């Protein structure tokens, strides 16, 4: 189990944060991601989504919990496993599905796809096909937030696989050195693609953060309430203190590295901890009627179905229109 659940499973002590959204709302957002991912899997299997996709099933608690504290003017840079981040930050289902299906009216006009989906209007600076590729971009975005004044911040999401990348180390150093308002959020699912991360790095992120003098909090990412409360506290602190912080969440990668990955390399036989089931059980405990929860789920399923149908009817882009946007026109910002 340790193999697949990363290094940060220790729960950090914390109190209930009044600013964290109610569990029912957090659950609704997680279901939206899960249902979207389910459809992605089916569309990919049917050949309707080209390329390759990396589903974020099991990591919804982190996307939803962290994003609950963010504003539209806060920015995030994401990873190749970025669907959940994009949806939680505010990318609509229509733009999302149209982009993944490569349509002209997709969020990125069908030129980015799953690994490069972005929506700058909601501060989502892009998924990234390069492991660690978004980290320094978020750092620059955080510096922009600082130089602009105000209390905006930047977040970089990265997986534990990126811990071995030099850019993470360079960026932690610079973030602390220059006191940049950035939150480094590691989704530690224990896997660096096809290899256990324990076979790839000799340190823990907690110790790494300590080496750079950056405050660190680690927690269980399958408990969306815990994530939301911790994130609210840490985001508040970064907003106020204008310096970096590191959050690490132990998560589960329910699907393979990419869709279609049979995961023959996996030894862990224990069932994954599913953040949706954790939250669902808690809703039951608190007496939220099952009918109410099921109605939410049915609504979301219908919404996703509608977005997929709309994407199917969307036009394909042309090479001519793509060729026009290799460069931004000089007069646009001159």
């Amino acid at each position, binding site marked *: 189990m340790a193999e697949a659940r990363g290094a940060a499973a220790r729960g950090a002590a914390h109190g209930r944060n009044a600013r964290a959204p109610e569990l029912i709302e957090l659950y609704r957002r997680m279901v939206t991601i899960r249902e979207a991912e389910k459809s992605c899997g089916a569309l990919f299997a049917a050949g309707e989504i080209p390329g390759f996709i990396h589903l974020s099933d099991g990591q919804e608690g982190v996307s939803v919990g962290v994003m609950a504290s963010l504003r539209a003017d806060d920015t995030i840079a994401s990873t190749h496993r970025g669907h959940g981040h994009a949806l939680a930050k505010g990318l609509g289902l229509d733009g999302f599905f149209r982009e993944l299906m490569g349509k002209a009216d997709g969020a990125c006009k069908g030129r980015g796809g799953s690994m490069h989906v*972005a929506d700058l*209007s909601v501060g989502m600076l892009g998924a990234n096909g390069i492991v660690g590729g978004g980290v320094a971009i978020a*750092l620059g975005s955080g510096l922009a937030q600082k130089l602009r004044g105000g209390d905006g911040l930047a977040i970089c999401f990265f997986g534990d696989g990126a811990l071995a990348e030099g850019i993470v180390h360079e960026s932690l150093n610079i973030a602390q050195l220059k006191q940049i308002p950035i939150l480094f959020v590691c989704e530690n699912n224990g896997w660096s693609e096809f290899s256990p991360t324990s076979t790839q790095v000799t340190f823990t992120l907690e110790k790494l953060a300590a080496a750079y003098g950056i405050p660190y909090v680690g927690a269980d990412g399958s408990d969306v309430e815990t994530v939301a409360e911790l994130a609210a506290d840490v985001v508040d602190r970064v907003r106020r203190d204008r310096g970096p912080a590191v959050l690490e969440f132990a998560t589960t990668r329910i699907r393979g590295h990419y869709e279609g990955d049979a995961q023959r390399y996996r030894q862990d036989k224990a069932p994954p901890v599913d953040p949706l089931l954790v939250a669902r059980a808690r809703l039951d405990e608190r007496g939220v009627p099952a009918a109410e929860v099921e109605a939410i789920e049915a609504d979301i399923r219908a919404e996703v179905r509608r977005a997929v149908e709309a994407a199917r009817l969307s036009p394909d882009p042309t090479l001519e229109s793509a060729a026009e946007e290799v460069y931004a026109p000089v007069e646009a910002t001159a």
Partner: protein
Amino acid sequence: MSEARFAHAINRALDDALAADPSVLLLGEDIANAGGTFAVTRGLLDKHGPDRVIDMPIAENAIAGMAVGLALGGFRPVVEIMFMDFMTLTMDALVNQAAKLHFMFGGQSAVPMVVRTQHGGGLNAGPQHSQCLEAWFAHIPGLKVVVPATLDDAYALLRSAIDDPNPVLFVENKALYPMKGALSDAPPAAPIGKARIARAGSDVTIVSYGAMVHQAMAAAEQLAGEGVSAEVIDLRTVQPWDEAAVLASLAKTHRLVIAHEAVEAFGVGAEIAARMAQIGFDELDGPIMRVGAPFMPVPFGRGLEVDYMPSAARIVEAVRATDV
């Protein structure tokens, strides 16, 4: 008009850009307190402050990546990468990120950033501090590559690069920094992508850019003494390059030589030669000749490096080989 050094033209362009636009800022190693390895940014910290002229640790990859984030965040970062050889460490940020974002995000955002760096030999700096790698970047859709040859152009092209909404690699030749020349009080604008006729001629076209323009001019001078009239085109911008200007000159002279300091194989000259062979075939009265460095790392030893670097004499030889 005043006499100045090439490095000063760049300093003035940075100074004026910082003064003109509050979104411009400089990032680089030793550029603030130390004023830059070649003193190009000297004095700018005092004038514009530490929020605009920012010393960075020795972390080229992160510096370039941060520039992308700053550009997306409404700033116009101008990064200095101390030697072009160190651009190897910025490749993800430049090639996978900066170059792609406008296209890959469906035109949602531009990435207005400049990376200033310097290339070239002549200082016996050896294989890891002398390379001319501009062809790499010219090969990447989404990047622009500018290489000035004169003081006025160094100023005007850098201002154009900073104003450009795209990522621009601005390459200065280190051997040019101490070069003295005339710097206009208000240098004429130099739009990216437009070549300049450095010397008009009618018998052969010599296309060049950067420091090699001066070798081309010396070659033209020598050829004039032999009764051969050479037209020297200063490309100024390698990507996008001014195909129309080269073709127009070829249509006039019917002979073409391309000279650059970078190694000849798979270089900028190869692209220009291929295009002109395709679209200017009917204009050609002789073979297209290339002058570049031999296919080897830049050697260190004094004599070795002199022999390695393309010269006016080699350009003259190449002109003769065009059947002029």
